[in-house]
Structure formats: structure tokens, C-alpha cells
């Protein structure tokens, strides 16, 4: 091959037709404000956990929307649920609620607890 002095990187585009969007749909149902993110990254800039690791709340949202959910749980477990991101988000997204719902959605095996009666 002739060396043109530049190469082509592998495409990182996703085929959204094939992506598994179960989680994205589930989260959209559970947290109404999910999906209104404009990707500004303010949440990431202020993220408490992000000061220690590469944790990135904006990316988490993107990954859900893209159906890239393989390592999501390990990533999410870095979040401290402190709510700084929510306090900063210009779109008023209920991010803390999103994270805690996501925590539960990813908790395996997930069983809905029952609130049984306490007497008889």
C-alpha cells in the first residue's frame, strides 16, 4: 500500500439499529427528565467522583442511550450520589434520581422488594 502519510482510524460509529436499547427505554420510563441532556458536560466538570477517577456522568448517559451497557455497573459504582451534578445541570435534569434508579436497574439479580403488612 502506498503510504499517503495518513491513515484511516477504525470507525467508532455505532449501529443504533442493532444496539440494545432496553435500558435506555427503561430509564426514559423511570426518569422523565432523562434524554433532555444537551451534552454540555457541566455535570462532569463538577463531579465529585470525577476528581478521583475518569468517572464521567455525561458519558454514562450517552452510553445508556447508545446501548453500550457492558461495563456500566462498574462505572456507576464510582458515583457517590452527592447531587453536585444535579445542582449544576443547566437543563434541570433530576440526575441524582437517574443515578439511583440506574443503580437499581443494574443491580443483579433485581427483584422488586415487597412491602408486606406487618400485622396479620
Amino acid at each position, binding site marked *: 500500500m502506498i503510504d499517503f502519510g495518513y491513515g484511516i482510524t477504525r470507525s467508532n460509529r455505532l449501529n443504533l439499529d442493532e444496539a440494545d436499547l432496553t435500558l435506555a427505554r427503561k430509564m426514559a420510563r423511570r426518569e422523565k427528565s432523562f434524554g433532555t441532556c444537551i451534552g454540555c458536560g457541566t455535570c462532569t466538570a463538577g463531579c465529585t467522583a470525577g476528581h478521583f477517577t475518569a468517572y464521567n456522568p455525561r458519558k454514562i448517559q450517552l452510553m445508556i442511550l447508545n446501548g453500550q451497557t457492558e461495563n456500566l455497573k462498574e462505572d456507576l459504582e464510582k458515583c*457517590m*450520589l452527592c447531587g453536585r451534578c444535579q445542582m449544576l445541570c443547566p437543563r434541570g435534569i*433530576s440526575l441524582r*434520581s437517574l443515578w439511583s434508579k440506574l443503580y437499581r436497574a443494574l443491580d443483579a439479580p433485581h427483584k422488586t422488594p415487597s412491602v408486606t403488612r*406487618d400485622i396479620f
Partner: protein
Amino acid sequence: MEERFSFDPFVLPFTIGMMFIIIYLSIAAGKVIYDLPSEDRKKFFRSLFSWRIFVSIKDIICECLLHVRIFRRNRVLGFMHMSIAFGWFMIIVLGHIEVKLYAPHRLNLPYFPIFFRYFMKETEQTMQGAFFFFIMDFFLLLIFIGIGMALYKRFNSRAMGMRRTTRLKMADRIALYTLWLIFPLRLLAESHTAEIAGGSFLTNTVGYLVGVVPEDYGRGFWWAYSISLGMFFFALPGSRYMHIPTEALLILFKNAGIRSRKKGDGVATAAIYSCSRCGICIDACQISSAARKPKDTAVYFIRQLREGDPAALKSAENCFMCGRCVQACPVGIDSIRLRQNVRELKAPKDQSDYSYLPAMDIGQADVLYFSGCMTRNMPSILYSMKKILKESGDNYLHMDASSTICCGRPMLLSGQIDAARAMIMKNTEIIRLSGARTLITSCPICYKVFCEQYSLQGVEILHHSQYIDRLIKEGRIEVEKSSLNVVYHDPCDLGRGSKVYKEPRRVIDAVATLTSIPSAIDKKKALCCGGSLANTALSEGSRRTVTEDAYKQLTASSPDVLATACPLCKKTFEGVSEGHSAVKDIAQIVVEAMVEKSPVPGKENSKNSSAHITA
């Protein structure tokens, strides 16, 4: 007095009902006590045989009979509850006294004191007899007044100082109507026999009217009276009136110093059944009063728990955990704890351990300043605090200058205890390692969790308002009083949550003019800003409504400044404050009023305050 009969079939509905309810309550109480964690159970039994039992008896009389706490809130409402409960209690007690006096050998028949007037005949008129007739009628009248008010309240609750009352379910309705029926039927029955058994102003008068009813039908009144009592007893377990017996048990638990720790422990159950569904908490909750969403308020949430309704899983989230309802509740039900129980039940099983966090050594200092996640979003507070700390001359370190590990309270509020513990351990390590004797934080959320969940013996924990108050008192910072009008808003976690009310007010008083606000939204009854982390169910729009409403109420007198002592409150209120009273943290106001001392050359007060990460 002379005995006419000792038995009549009409006593059966009452007697069967009473036996049923006694058995039911004994088993239920046994189960609740059995469900207590064993150390709590020991504590409970020990408290029964200590002086605390007297406090409990006093509390039971004050709350279950006289409803002192409702009285304090609203006299009309208090009188309504008191007249029914106390009146009924007195009628039962007096009935027993009468039996003891006139037919002591019948005390073993449970129905005898209740239907005393049917079984006895007045042989001669005595002062003592007239006294009893009068006093029985008096208490019956008292009950009638109470029921009249209750009827009126059903149709016009505002007159009783309540904007909303609870919507009732079937079992409640049956119990309510039978309860209302019991007393008129008793009056009719006693009136009917007033000529034989004696009576007073009520029974005699009504007696003339019902006198036209023939003797045989007259016994129908006694039947009806007995049936209504029996029905009430059978409806009781499914109705809100379970609060009558349960509240006494809850008071015993409280005075034994035991609190609920998880769902289904006896205290939680007792709390759930102690709710009288009075609905006082509905108006107290701003999600209802401002955002007009009453469906998840404490009363309904507790009802869901009692019915084992899975909707409770969701409504547990729709709460600021601000504690206004708990403060208002006449029974003192800690509904926040009940919500927390459900949140913990729901939490994911495997939780993070934050093993990625590096070991941190920030160096040595006497005083540590922990700004916390929230304060880091509000540089105005952070800079003010740094200035004050520098001026104080204390040897301090900014614990989370480069990066914060969350205090853990938000995680706790989401029910993830293990994850929260992991953060608590990390922070404790850092604090211990620094050798600090004082820990100051600007965030009430952190302050509360430091005080309640951290074991930091030997380290004094201060909210910055307390610290500043001390500095002013000791003359370590110099401030000038300005003419600014300042209204102070108690942050929930600092006021109701940690009972810090005095210090922030003293600080404001030293630097500006503290303007008073209506007592209905002051101190213990302070409003929530609506920004609370604890609610993960409410939409931003509804939150904003709560915030706007709170801001409007707080700044009704158009003060120059609305002061808070919480970064989240500040941020939240700032979002709605455009053009009106400015929102400031106490620290900011103090810095503006501070007269800086001339720096002493060669003396550096604070060390380099950035945290140093090893690992």
C-alpha cells in the same frame, strides 16, 4: 339503687365485640413486641419497671386522652378530639365506679357497667345518685359537642384550621359512623329507662320525648346501642381508630428510648398503626401546600404501608425528608424514618466500596474545614469561609481543597447504607490522621451526618454558623453592625435536623438587623427550600413551585437579604430571587461586615491548605 336484671340478650353484640377486640389487641401487641430487636425488647421491659413508666403514664394521659399536642396546634381541633376521647373515657370510668358503689358483686360482668342504667332501678333519690346522673350526662354532652364539631369538620374543614383532610376508606367510614352512632343511641337508650333508673338534664329531657315509645320497643334502643358498640369493635382493626390503643404502646416505646431501625421492627409497626389519619401532616407538607401533590404525604404513605400496598415503594421517594410533617404530627410519628426504612429495603444489594479512592494525607492541623460537595459549587461561601478562617488565627486546613469525598448522607438517604459507610470510613480516616480537634463544615447536610453517623470522639463538630458565633463572642473577628434588614431561613438539616437555631441568629444580630418572620414558618416550623437531595421523585417544575412559594413567604416583608446557612438552600433560592431580596449565606454577610485586622508581619496563620494525595 336496686338490681332489676343481671342479663339480657342485647348485651351479646357488645360482649362478643369486646372479647374479639381484646384478643385481637393482645395478639397484635404480642407480635409487635416480639418483632423488636432483642436488645430493644430488653430495653422496653426494663423501662416498664423504672421511673420512666410514670412519664409514660403522664404522656398517655396527656396525648391519648387530652390531646395536648393537638390543642397546642389548634384549640378548636384539640377540643374536638379531647371532648370525644376524654368524655368517653370518663363515662367508662364513672360507669365502673357506679357498679363498684351500687352493685359491687357485678364487677365481674364486663357488660354491666356499660348497660348499668338498664339493669338498675332508682329506689330513692340521693345526692350521690343525682351527682352521678348529672356528671354522666355532662360527659355525654361533651361528647355530643365533639361529634357535632367532627360532623361540621367533615363538611367544612377550614373552620378547624385545616385546608385538606384525609380521604377515608370503607373500613374507616364504617368505624366512623358507628362511633358517631354509639352516643346518640346511648342517649336514647338511657333516656328510655330514665324514669326507672334515673337521669339528669339530658336523659330526663329526652326521656319525656321518647316516653311515648312503648316499653317493648324501647328495648330496641338498648339493642341498637349494643350493636353499634359491637360493630365498632369489629371495625376497629381495619380502621384508623387502631391509633387509640396503639398510640399508648408507641409512647411506651418512645420513653424506653427505642427507635425504628428497619421496616417491620416493632417500633415501625407501632408507628404505622398509631397514625390517626388526622391529616395535619397534609397541610404541613409543602409538596401538598405549594406543589399541590398531596398523594404521597405522610398520612397516605403510612396508610400504604399499613395495607402492604406496593405503591409505598414509590411514594417513599417523594419526600424532601424535611421533617415538617414529623414536627406537626400530634402523635409524633417519625414518618421520615418509615420512609427511610423503605428506601433501605429497596436499595441495591451489592453496593460500591469506593476502593478506587486513594489514601489521603492532608497534613496536621488543629482545625479542619470541610466544605463538602455543595459548598464547592458555591464559591462565594467557600471564599468567605476561607477569609474568616484566616482572620480567626486558627491553625486550619481545608480538608477537601482539591477533591471531596462526599460525606455520605445523600447516599444514606437513598438507602444504600453500605456504600455510605464506605465513604464515612474514608473521611473518618482523613480526619483522624490530621489530628484535628475541631471539624467545621458549611453544609448542614454534612453537619448532620458528621454528628449522627461518624464516630469522631474527641473532635468537636461545628457548623460554620456556630464557629463564627464563637469567633465573634471571643472577639477573634471584629464585625460592624450594618443597617441591612435580614431574614433568616433555617435550613432543614440544621434547624429541625440538628437543632441549631440560636447561633445563626446571634451571628446575624451581630452584623445586621434580624427581621422576624411569622412563627408559622420560623424555627421548628421553618420551610424547606425545595432543593432537598432526598426527593428523587418530584419533577423540577414542582420543586420550583415549592421554592417560589417558600421564597415568597420568607421575603414577604421585603428584607434586603434572605440569609441561609446552607449552600443548597442558597443555590435553590437564588434560582427564584431575581430582582428581589438577595440570597446570601451567613458567612458572606459576616465577611462583608468584617473589619480586617492589620496583618502581623512574619506570622503566617494558615498552612498551605491544598490536600496532598499519596498513592
